[in-house]
């Protein structure tokens, strides 16, 4: 299955619609929910930060790992501190939207997805670029693992 470039996975599209359909005041609350839903890092990664890729573009250090399995399904793992809920929230959105997605779907995700959530007026541009960097690093890892 190939996804056309620039298209969103069905789950990511739902998330973008959820964000754009709520008023500003509830958008941060929604982001907070995603930060709370981000799964814990599996035990096999604990204490092995060398197995994770650092995302220095995020204001608070965040680490991620990407695995593409034999069926071409992408699995995402994040290590984001609880005292940085915004960064955790971004990781939560990408996890909810792309974990379990086909590698092609991940690669088709447009870089400007992060600007489709209506967060520009609520979150500083610097932080949104941190989320874009997370997505770019995920896509690069997926591409590397497939080739």
């Amino acid at each position, binding site marked *: 299955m190939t996804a056309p470039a620039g298209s969103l996975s069905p789950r990511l599209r739902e998330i973008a619609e959820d964000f754009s359909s709520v008023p500003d005041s509830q958008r941060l609350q929604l*982001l907070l929910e995603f930060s709370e839903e981000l799964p814990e890092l599996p035990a096999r990664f604990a204490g092995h930060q060398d197995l994770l890729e650092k995302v*220095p573009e995020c204001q608070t250090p965040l680490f991620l790992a990407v695995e593409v399995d034999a069926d071409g399904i992408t699995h995402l793992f994040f290590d984001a501190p*609880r005292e*940085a*809920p*915004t960064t955790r929230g971004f990781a939560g959105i990408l996890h909810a939207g792309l974990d379990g997605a086909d590698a092609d779907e991940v690669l088709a995700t447009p870089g400007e997805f992060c600007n489709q959530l209506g967060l520009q*007026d609520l979150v500083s*541009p610097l*932080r949104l670029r941190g989320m874009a960097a997370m997505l770019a690093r995920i896509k690069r890892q997926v591409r590397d693992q497939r080739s």
Partner: protein
Amino acid sequence: MGLPSDSAPKFQDYAHPEMLVTTEWLADHLDDPGLVVAESDEDVLLYETGHIPGAVKLDWHTELNDPVTRDYVDGAGFARLMSEKGISRDSTLVLYGDRNNWWAAYALWVCTLFGHPDLRLLDGGRAKWIAEGRPVSTDPPQRTRTDYPVVERDDTMFRAFRDQVLSHLGQPLIDVRSPGEYTGELLHMPDYPQEGALRGGHIPGARSVPWSRAAADDATFRSRGELEAIYQDEAGLRPDDPVVVYCRIGERSSHTWFVLHHLLGYPQVRNYDGSWTEWGNSVKAPIRRGDSP
């Protein structure tokens, strides 16, 4: 009238001891009617995860800045904001936040431009309150809307603009950024790559004193003696010096402004909020690279 000052012995050594409160003092006065507590964080979601009970949120990015022009809100905008938060002109406003009160000091500095009479910082900020196991709440604060008067912002005393900094050259300047930003190796803060400038380095003559040196490990301010050792013995400032402080956009330097003006009592300290994102992008602005001022 505002609330009584915190008489904690440590504060009595500072030039303006009434500008700080301890976590104990705040816990004891949390229900006092003349008090409003406001949280101002770097992470815009941190307040929502739990805040000091009754505290309102003051967002540096969306509320204190003008949404279009690179400037702070005007008198009418400030009055609207304060009224919405339920803050009166005679409220004792205690600010606190994450990261050693970095953004809380910024909010306090902006409120100072509007001359809010009774402003205080919670020594140790959010980290100390939580480390001590004090209560936090996710309940939205219930505050009645107030009618805060329109007071125009006064930028003359505590704010410096680019041209004023140019004419200040030769007089004391403190660069509060990280050492790599000061020397010009980095065009941004470590881990903050995109808020950059076209040129790296520092304003000629500026001494490097990274802002967080003024904070102890528990996020409280260092004692007066320790601060004098840093800013006077090391950086060579004299108490009657007119000083300009700057960083990247003026937030970290608000913390140093607070230290120099309120804790050490320097009468003339101005924060250059244009800071490196203006200076390092300004055509023909003089720049020095390397370790020396």
